[in-house]
Each structure stands twice: as structure tokens, then as C-alpha cells.
């Protein structure tokens, strides 16, 4: 699988390079190649463009792979700054694009020359980088690879879910085999005894001892103790697990795939979960956010039709809540994501790989507290923490300031 993948990417890179040399629109020399500029471009691209564009794939707008080779730099600049003006000027290529993409207007961006160059630098760089799955979808071999990958993920989940059952049943089978073996051996010995007229007394001796041992009170108490211990352990563990919904992955009314949106299409979490930087709720996206793209894309998919229907009927979509905190606990996304600068994945896990969203972490209080103990306060450049840092450094000069040090373990911070 992997070798195939590599082979293809090499081939494609060669193709790219060939193509690259044939173009005349902008010489690659014009586009900067410094890492810093590419990084700047990357940030710009992710902040402004990913909603409608990807490098290798059409989303709302065209794929931008090697876009610098399609038109002159001036044209690109004009189009980025005000696409409508270019279209209205009657530029054939622009008009064609406009028609091709359902007359969707591209937002005007007031970028400086430098910014546009850095964007192009990033696009050029990432056009070279690798060949993503989507661009080779047509190749049958790759298709099957993709399927395999997804079934592998399924397998993984399947194994994770049923692992204890499998082990238990295997153990059960083993036990059955052992018992039947024991029965068979006893029977064989008996028969052998009868045949050879060997005195049974001699052989019963060990059994008698065992019987004596079995009937001894110490044995009884030990067994009882172990049994009670096991029951208590199971009960306590069971009770601790009450309400813990780790790996909870309910079926949602619409089969929305985070793997596709967050993973493959690389849409920023914030694009849909708009509240995450300002509110306690990250908020489930409203249907109009889905419709931003889906009034164009995959309109006929049965799942997307459900959204259209909901909008038509004016009936909100009732998603199943996956991450449930008890009502007595207060949690604020903005505090963690904006102030604490915690990545979404830290709590929500590899969302970009989840076909069906599931709860990655236990979300128990122990888990919260544990993180509060380990995590450094994101105090740099935040004047709110100045005083706390000063006092902390005086008292513990070499220890970093942890969340727990500034009241992160106080009950009243989350329970009120």
C-alpha cells in the first residue's frame, strides 16, 4: 500500500516539475521561496481562503494548485482584490470561471503585494508537496487503498469495542477444552485401572488430600475474600464509570463526517464552531453555516437534502450531544481555547480522523483536575497574569506557573 503511494507521488512530482517548466505565465523566480514568507502565506491562506479553496481540490471555488501558472501576476492581483471588476471588464477567463462556478462571487481581499506574493509562495510550495488522495481518485488502485484505509479504521474501532468480549470468549473456550481434557484423562485412568486391576487406594490418595485441602476453612475464607474483593472492585469500577461516556459515538440524524470536513478538506474548526473563541459554548453550527457551501456543493446527496428539508420546513436539526458535562459543572470554551491556547484535539481527540464523532476523553473531574495540575498558565503577553507571575516567581523561582497554582483546583471555579 505504502509503496504504491510513494510510487505514485514520485510520478506525479515528476509530472509537476515537467509542467512547471513548460509554463510561461509567471516565472518561478518571481515567487519567493524563503521559508518565512511561505509560512506567512500559509497563515494568510488558512485564515482567508480555506473556506472556499483548497490546493488540490475544488470546494466552492477552483483548486489553486499552481494557480500562478494560469494567469499573469497582475491578473491574479486584480482578481484577488476585486474579482467582480475583472469579470465586468469582460476578461474571457474570468467570465468563464464565474460561469463555471455557478456565478459565486469571490470575496474581495485587500491584500498588499507582499501578501499576495507570500500567498502564491505558499500555494506554489504546497502544490509541490505531495499528492493528496483526492487528486488521484480516478485511479482504481488508489480507490481501493482508500477503502482499505477506512475499513482499517473501522476494524480498529471494531476491535477496540469487542476486545474484552473476544478475550473472555477465548478464555471460556480454553477453560472448556481444559475441562473436557480433564474428564477424558480421568475416564482413561479409570478404564486403565479396571483393565490392569490396579488398586484404586493408591491412586485415591492424592484426591483425598486435595479434598481435605478443599474442605479446610482457610480455603473457604480465602476464596470468599477473593470473591468479595473482586465484587467490590467491579462495583467500584462500575460506579466510577457511571455517566462516563468515553467513546460514546451515537448515530447522528445527518451522517456528517468530520473526517471529510476537518480532515480531508482541512476546514478550520472555528469556521463552523463559531463560538469557540468568545463564548462558553463552541456551539453546534446552524444550518445556514452548512448552506454557505452546500447550496452549491453536493446538493443532491441524500444527507445534504436533509439540511435543505430542515430549512424548508423551518425545523431545526436535532443533533445528539456527544460531549456532555454534568449540569453542575461550568465549562467555558473561550477560557480554554482563547486564553489558555489549548488545541481542540487535546480534549476532542483526532476529530479530523473521525467518520462518526465520538467522545475521545473521559471528561471526568479527575481528568480535568489532572490537566489543571500539569498545564502551564498561558501567561505570556497577557497583562492579567503579571501580578500572579511576579508573586509565583518570587516564591518558586524555578517552577513554571501551573493552572493549579492560581486556583485551577478551587471548587468554586467550575461549580456554582
Amino acid at each position: 500500500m505504502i509503496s504504491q503511494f510513494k510510487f505514485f507521488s514520485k510520478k506525479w512530482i515528476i509530472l509537476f516539475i515537467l509542467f512547471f517548466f513548460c509554463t510561461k505565465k509567471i516565472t518561478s523566480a518571481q515567487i519567493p521561496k524563503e521559508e518565512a514568507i511561505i509560512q506567512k502565506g500559509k497563515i494568510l491562506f488558512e485564515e482567508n481562503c480555506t473556506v472556499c479553496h483548497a490546493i488540490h481540490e475544488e470546494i466552492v471555488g477552483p483548486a489553486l494548485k499552481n494557480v500562478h501558472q494560469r494567469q499573469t501576476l497582475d491578473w491574479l492581483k486584480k482578481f484577488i482584490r476585486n474579482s467582480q471588476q475583472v469579470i465586468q471588464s469582460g476578461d474571457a477567463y474570468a467570465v468563464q470561471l464565474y460561469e463555471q462556478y455557478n456565478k459565486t462571487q469571490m470575496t474581495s481581499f485587500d491584500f498588499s503585494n507582499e501578501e499576495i506574493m507570500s500567498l502564491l509562495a505558499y500555494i506554489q510550495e504546497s502544490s509541490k508537496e505531495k499528492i493528496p488522495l483526492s487528486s488521484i481518485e480516478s485511479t482504481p488502485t488508489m480507490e481501493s487503498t482508500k477503502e482499505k484505509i477506512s475499513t482499517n479504521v473501522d476494524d480498529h474501532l471494531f476491535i477496540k469495542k469487542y476486545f474484552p468480549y473476544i478475550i473472555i470468549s477465548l478464555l471460556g473456550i480454553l477453560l472448556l477444552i481444559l475441562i473436557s481434557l480433564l474428564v477424558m484423562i480421568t475416564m482413561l485412568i479409570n478404564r486403565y485401572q479396571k483393565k490392569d486391576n490396579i488398586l484404586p487406594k493408591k491412586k485415591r490418595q492424592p484426591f483425598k488430600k486435595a479434598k481435605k485441602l478443599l474442605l479446610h476453612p482457610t480455603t473457604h475464607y480465602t476464596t470468599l475474600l477473593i470473591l468479595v474483593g473482586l465484587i467490590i472492585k467491579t462495583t467500584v469500577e462500575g460506579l466510577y464509570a457511571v455517566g462516563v461516556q468515553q467513546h460514546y459515538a451515537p448515530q447522528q440524524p445527518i451522517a456528517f463526517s468530520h473526517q471529510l470536513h476537518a480532515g480531508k478538506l482541512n476546514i478550520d474548526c472555528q469556521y463552523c464552531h463559531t463560538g469557540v473563541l468568545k463564548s462558553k459554548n463552541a456551539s453546534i453550527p446552524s444550518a445556514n453555516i452548512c448552506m454557505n457551501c452546500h447550496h452549491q456543493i453536493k446538493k443532491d446527496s441524500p444527507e445534504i437534502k436533509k439540511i435543505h428539508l430542515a430549512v424548508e420546513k423551518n425545523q431545526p436539526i436535532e443533533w445528539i450531544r456527544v460531549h456532555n458535562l454534568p449540569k453542575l459543572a461550568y465549562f467555558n470554551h473561550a477560557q480554554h481555547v482563547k486564553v489558555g491556547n489549548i488545541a481542540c484535539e487535546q480534549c476532542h481527540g483526532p476529530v479530523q480522523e473521525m467518520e462518526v464523532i465520538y467522545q475521545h476523553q473521559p471528561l471526568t473531574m479527575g481528568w480535568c483536575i489532572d490537566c489543571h495540575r500539569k498545564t502551564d498558565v498561558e501567561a505570556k503577553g497577557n497583562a492579567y497574569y503579571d501580578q500572579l507571575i511576579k508573586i509565583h516567581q518570587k516564591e518558586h523561582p524555578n517552577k513554571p506557573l501551573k493552572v493549579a497554582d492560581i486556583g485551577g483546583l478551587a471548587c468554586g471555579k467550575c461549580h456554582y
Partner: protein
Amino acid sequence: MSQKIYWKGIEELQNSPEFIKNAAAFPDKTTKEKENHLFSRRDFLKMMGFSVAAASLASCETPVRKAIPYLNKPVDIDPGIPNHYASTYIQEGVYCGIVVKTREGRPIKIEGNTLCPLTQGGVNAQVEASVLSLYDEERLQYPQENQTENSWDIIDKKIIQKLESIQQNQGKIYIISHTIISPSTKATIEIFKKKYPNTTHVVYDTPAYDSLIQANTQYFGKAIIPTYRFDKAQTIVSFSADFLGTWLSPIAFTKQYSKMRKVSEQKKKMSKHYQLEANLSLTGANADHRIPIHPQEEGIILIHLYNILAKKSNQTILPTQSKIPSIEKLEKIAQSLWQNQKQSLVISSHHDPSIQILINAINHLLGNYGHTIDFDNPHYTKQGDTQKMQQFVQALQKKQVAAAIFFNANPVYNHPQGAIIAKYLPQVPLSMATNDRLDETATLVHYNTPDHHYLESWNDASPQKNLFSLVQPTITPIFNTRSAPESLLLWSKAPVENYYSFLQSEWKKNLFIQQKEHKDFITFWDQCLYQGIFVVKKKNAPKTALSPLPFALIDAQVKKIHHNHINASQALTLVLYEKIGLGNGTQANNPWLQEMPDPITKVCWDNYLTMSQTLAEQYTLQPKEGKAPVVQLHIGQQKIQIPVIIQPGQAFNTIGLAIGYGRKKGGKVANNVGINSFPLMPMVNGQWSHHITSIKLKPSGQYTTLAQTQTHETYMGKKNIVQETTLADYQKNPWAGSPSITIATNQGKEKPETITLWEGHMYPQHHWGLVIDMNACTGCSACTIACQAENNVPVVGKAEVANRREMHWIRIDRYYSSDATVNDLKGLEKAAENPDVTFQPMMCQHCNNAPCETVCPVLATTHSEEGLNQMTYNRCIGTRYCANNCPYKVRRFNWFKYHDNKKITANTSMNNSLGKMVLNPDVTVRARGVMEKCSLCTQRIQEGKLKAKMEKRKLADEDINTACATACPAEAIIFGDMNNPESKIYQTLHKENTARAYHVLEEIRTQPNVTYLRKIRNQD
């Protein structure tokens, strides 16, 4: 200064076994519970134990929770982030500029609008509670014809048809309303009148204020109520006017008054306030000198006061036949007034215009007009006309009324002649009401065309000349209701789209042209909407010239006064008053207001007679086994059974009774609470009087329970709770009144702060605290309701309050001072006839050495790094050790599940799906069996801190404020970070009022984070 002894109520003085029993933090099993025992609690627990454990294990399956996002998210609503809208509270002529906090599109909290020049960010209990009235299930949900549902179109068609035929037949149409201060609504009435010229608009108010208007008409020829300026008055003399509680414009007056009452080391001055009244009112409780007078005495006292002042100014004195009233202080009052000419204020709430004319004459002698009384900016909130209302009732009796439109008015209940209106109303050919519920009046009309709640509607208000205020909807109408002025517009077939566009056109026509700041109307409108108010700035407006009556006419009034009041003997008189909680009863179905203890009597869920100890002894009325005696009150033909409460400070031979109770069709909460006293009012000198003579009292021998909270949660035998001193002493020594507390040790007597068992806490960042200025606090209880709304505090109902299980997180303790000295033990046992009153808001003191924290077996109550005493509900197992160990008695236990509990019907905010909309989503609704208490609005602290952190800056003082401090119209509560030298609380404690600051029960060394500022009385 000799130390005063304080007591809380008659019960404490008598120290009856019931009182001692009740004084404990928790009651024993109530009698009812004892009787109901079929088998013992232990058996029950044994039986239940296993099954409960089994059941709870079986039900461990976590329920599926849904997340339902918007279909189309409104741009300005983000789930989890509150939005604030400036609006205006107008109900029956009560005005308040407000800011409404909404969450996910539903209003959850009301706060004052600081941009409003009149109310300046203050609110009162009624304004705070009005958000719950919005979610009242019992509001009318659709238009009705003969009390069956019908569509707006059909009803409108029928009404218009009938109105037109009435017009053709020259029938008389009446619109009956309370004062309308909305210029646009008034314009709709004018349009209606144009279409139906036979229309008369009748305005009445309860209680009425037209004695003021009439007096000003007769005296100055101006039919207006002026604006009073308590912030300019050095001496205030009020005759029964409860201007801090209910009279005219209490929120604005409290703001102004408290400015003059606050003292600091930089400003050792305060106003002097005399109150002469029969019932002990909230204002009387705050006065420096309160003089109980019989209402019949008021006229003669005024005549004498006038004469003393007239002598000083060399004017003719008024002739009087009656003897000089036996009031020693009258000379002193006159002296103080005379010294503060142009800076004094004499007011009266009397309903007789003659008395008001005399008041005007006195103010005129003192030169107060143009200084403390402002005729240039008349006050519009009371425009009732009793005479016009009388004419309507007469026309009704003579069957001359062809159509009656009750415009949010319920005269069947709140008019003294309600019974007559109820009798003749069904005979009126066409009647409709825009009332919000099927109340006493609305059940008798043909068409019910319910108005929106004010939080759902567009409107405007002009409470004062040149001050305009907008009402904007903060939620889409919950029910199929319609704005009442829009109904009028529709019925007059006016060519307007809706009331909103009409309102805009009115503002464009009348107000947009009066300003130059904005060039186009839309920006002007948006600006007004954002700020909530618009003030017309007029430069060099001409001062109103006031030419008073010739002396002879004042003289004529004196004759009238003699005739109407003085000649009558000072017989037993019933004096009606308004309570600060329930007011005139419009919001009677609001359980928050019903359960708010009256600041004076501390009784909730009832009205009752208040009388002095001496009078009670005359009638042998004494409480028995903690129950109040019931009397039979005979007024003319009417007989009323009503409980009696002994009220220190009540003038002899007077009895007080509150209006606003006794609703019959107000809703489940309101109905049959107390008795309706509106029908008792007699007509005197053309006005409905609040003084009822010729009454007879007869003890009935029965006793009843009143839900009185003052005797609960008391800390007897402890000194150093209330501290006070006089202004003169304070000026000499700012530490005056501070008792020196020492504790006996084996080393001799030591100061409490030198002895401690505690290690103390470190507060590296914030140290939250409250400062409560007992000089500013008027006891109005707005904080109690604000806290209830903010923190989801449940209502428990009358029976549970009587069981001492009320849940308020902040209570207003009221103390009476004893007349006797410390050593006069016999004297201390007697209730003072006229005690000094002190109010002390009491909430969790957030002790640094908290006794509750050490006794909790499960660490459910702990101390935070910021000085808060935290209460973790999910840890609490309900041992109640903490409450027992709390010296301040501020912890509240959830004896029942107050939410989703059909038995606690009064708790509407938690027991029906509509009521639940008012709950604050950031605060947990507590379960049964857990302790709760003031959290110092920790949710607000967290929110404010987060805001600062997100903006990467230091926390500013104004980022956080508690609900109680925000609501306080007197600015008596200051919240802040005591570690921040720039904060107001730091300034108060370290610069302005260091000497006055003290802790309650300092000697037990709990080191509270709540500090009180010693009360200063401006007494001689």
C-alpha cells in the same frame, strides 16, 4: 455616647418560648410533619435504603441529550453570550430606565440604565421582578370574544363595526387608563378620538396624586407636578410621604437622597430628615427624627409650622382656633428649615388639596421654588383625574356609556368604586380590555384584546419634560397578543403599517427636529435605541414664573382644613398605605414580590393591620403561640376579618393597612392573598382619602399564622451587630460609635485581632469584598429581588416561610433601638413607642476564618484564593453543620426539591416550562438536600475575569459588579477587589471611610470580607 440596645421585634422582647424555639437555625419537625408519622423515620430509611440503591444503579443509563442549533443563526446572538438592550419600564406610571440582559433571545435580568438622568441606574423590587411577570403562564394568550378564543381579524371587524354604529348614534365612548407617559400612545388615542369624536379619555391613578396637581393649579395656576430635588435639600420634612418607597418617583428620589446622606472623612455633612407620619414607612425608618402623628393632626401642624415660619419672615400668620399640637420638635423643625432656605423641602402625600396648598405656601415661604422644587421640568408620571373618573362611574350608572375600553386598567379591583363598575359594566353595549390577564375587569368585558408585556413591545415614555425614553422588545411576543396602541390604531382605521412604524414617524416628526447632532433619522434612532434615552437640550429656557395665591385664599384653605380634619376628633383611624414590594397590586401574581418580606414588618404573603403596643393592649390583642390575633374590623356596613401585627412606631389610635392585596382574579399566586382595601377609601374634599375614620375593632378570639421572617435566623445576646453614632459626634471624632471590644484571656483582656487559631489566607491576585454603607441603605429590598433573579433563588410559599425556610440569599435585617438605657433592665423589656430603625443587609460574610468551612465533613464549602467562601452543591450531603455553625445565619437549606415540584405552585420560575425561561443558565438550580448561600455572584466574577483575560489586560474595577450592588438605587453596596488600590472599595476602606468601617460580630474573629460602614444619624 451611651450604647443603644437593639431588638428585632416584639417577639424578641417578650422572649416567649415560641421565639426561643424559632430562633434556632432550623426548626424541629413542624407539627404537621409530626402528626403524619405512620411508621418511624428509621424504618422508612431501612426499607428505602436498599431499593433506592438498586433503583439508582438500574437507572444509571445516561439519557440522550440533544443539541439543537439555530436553523438560521441571528447575527447578533451567540449561544452563551448575553446581549443587553436599553429599554424602559413603564407600568401604571412607574418609570425606570433599564437595561435588559438577554440570553439566547430571552430576557433573564433587568438592571438600571445609568444613562438615564432620572433614575441613574437605580431600580426597585418591582422593576427587578417584572421579568418574571413576562413569563407568567396566566397571561392572556390570545384575543377573546366573550371569553372564547377568536382571531384578531374577526374581533377587529366586529369592534370597528360596533364602534362606527355607536358613533353614528352619538353614543359615548370611554377609554379608561392609568397615567400614560408615552407620547406616541397618547397620539394613538388622539387619532382614535379623531375617528370617534365622542371619545373621552379617563385617567385615574391608584393611589391618586391629583391633590398635588390641584394644589398647584389653585396656587400657581399650573396643573402639573413639579420635579423634586432631594439632592439639593439640606432639610427634608415629609408628612407621610414615603418618597423612598412608593411616593411619586421613589427610585429617582432614593438616588438623590442617598447622595446627601453619604458621609466620608472628606465630607462630614449630611442632610437632615424629619418624617411626621402615622404608619412607620420605609422613609420614616430612614429619617433622623421620626414623629408619629395622627393623620387628623397633619393640618394643624402644618398651620402652626406655617405660622412659625411666617413670623420669622414677617408675614401675616394664619388664624387658627385649635390648640397648638404637642410636638416639641416643631420649633426645631422650623428652625432647621429656616436656616436652609432655598435648600429645604416640605412634602406631603395627603390626598386633600387644601393640605397640599398649605405645603406649597410653606415651600414658598422658604423660597424653595426654583431650587429644590423645579417647575421648569414637570414630572409626568402621575396625571390621574379623580373627578373625570367619577364622571365615568356616574355615566356608567346612568347607562350613558356606549363603549368602554379598558386600556391596561383594572378599576373593578383597584378603584374604590370597583363594585359599582362591576355591577354596571355588563350592561355597557360594547366593552373591551387590553389587560394582560382575565382579571377582575377583563372577565366582565366583551372583547379581550391583550396587550404585549412591556418587554415584548415597542413604545416610548416621557417621565419628565424634555426626557424621552424608548421601550424596545427584547423577545418576540410569547403569546398571540398585540400592542395596545396598535389596536387603537387599527380600530381607528389609521393608515399606518404598525405601531413600530408609527412610533418612528412620531419620533421623526417631534424629536428628530429638536436635535442637531445627527443628520439623518436612522442614525438618530439607532443612537436613541442604543442609549435608551433622548434628552432634549434647550439652552436658556425661560424660567417658569410663579405667582402664588393671595393670602386670603390660603386662609380659605385653613377653614377647609379645620372643617375636614381638625374638627373631627382624633378617633381610631385606619390609614392605608402602599407596600414597596407589591405596590398597588398590578404585579400581584409575581411570587418574587409576594415573598419579598416587607422591610418594616418583615411579613410576606399577606396584608394585616399594624397597631401600636398601647392600642393592642387596650384591645387585649397579643400574639399567642407565635400566631397573630385576628380582629373583626367594621367599616360602615363592611366587616373584615384580618390579623393584627404590633408595630412599634405606629401613631396612637391609628391602624395601618396595605393596599394591593386581596386579588380575586389576579392569578394562582395572587388570588386570596390578604384583603382588598381599595373599596374602603372614603371621598374627602373631592379626593379618595387614605384615612378612614369611624371604624370599629373587635377581637375575634382567633389566631392565624403570618409568614414573618424577622424572628428567624436571629443572633441573640450578641453585641456589635449594629453600630451607629450621631453626626455631631462623627464630626468630632470619625471613630465615634466604635465599641472597644476585648476578650478575656489568662493574660488579661486582649483585642480580638491579637488572638487567633487560624493561619490566614494568601490572596495573590484578587480579594473580593463588599462594603455596605448603612447610612445609604434605605432597606428597599431591590437587592433581594435582584439576587433572586440572578441566582435562581426559589420561592417557597407562605407555609414554608412560616416554617422558617425562606431561601433569600440576601435579607434586610431591621433593628429597632430601645428607648431604655443599658442598665434599665425593666425598661428594656418594653417595646419602644417610637424606636430608631436601622436596616442591615445581611448575606454570606465570606469570612476569612469561616466557621462553616471547618465543620463540613465533605469539604463542600471551601475557601478560594480570591477570598470567596465557595459552596459546592454537588459535594454537599446536607448535614447542615455549616448553617448551625454560621454566626450570621445566612446559609439556606433546600428542604424540598423546589423545581419541577407540582406542590410548590408559588415557585413559578421553576415549575412550568414558560417560567423556567427566566432562569439564569450560568447558575445551577439547586437540588433537594443541599445547602446554598450568597456566592458573591461568582458567575459574574468569572465572566469579568475572562473578559479581561481575553483582552489581555488587567482587571478593571468596573468589569465586575454583583447583582445586589448593581440594583441598589442608593449605591449602598460597593463590590470590588480589595487588593486593587484603584478600586472604589479600596478607596472607601482605606481613604474615605476607614474609621466607619466595622465587621459584624468582630469579637468572634471570623474576619469577614463584608464590611459595614457605621450608621450616622443627623440627630441633635
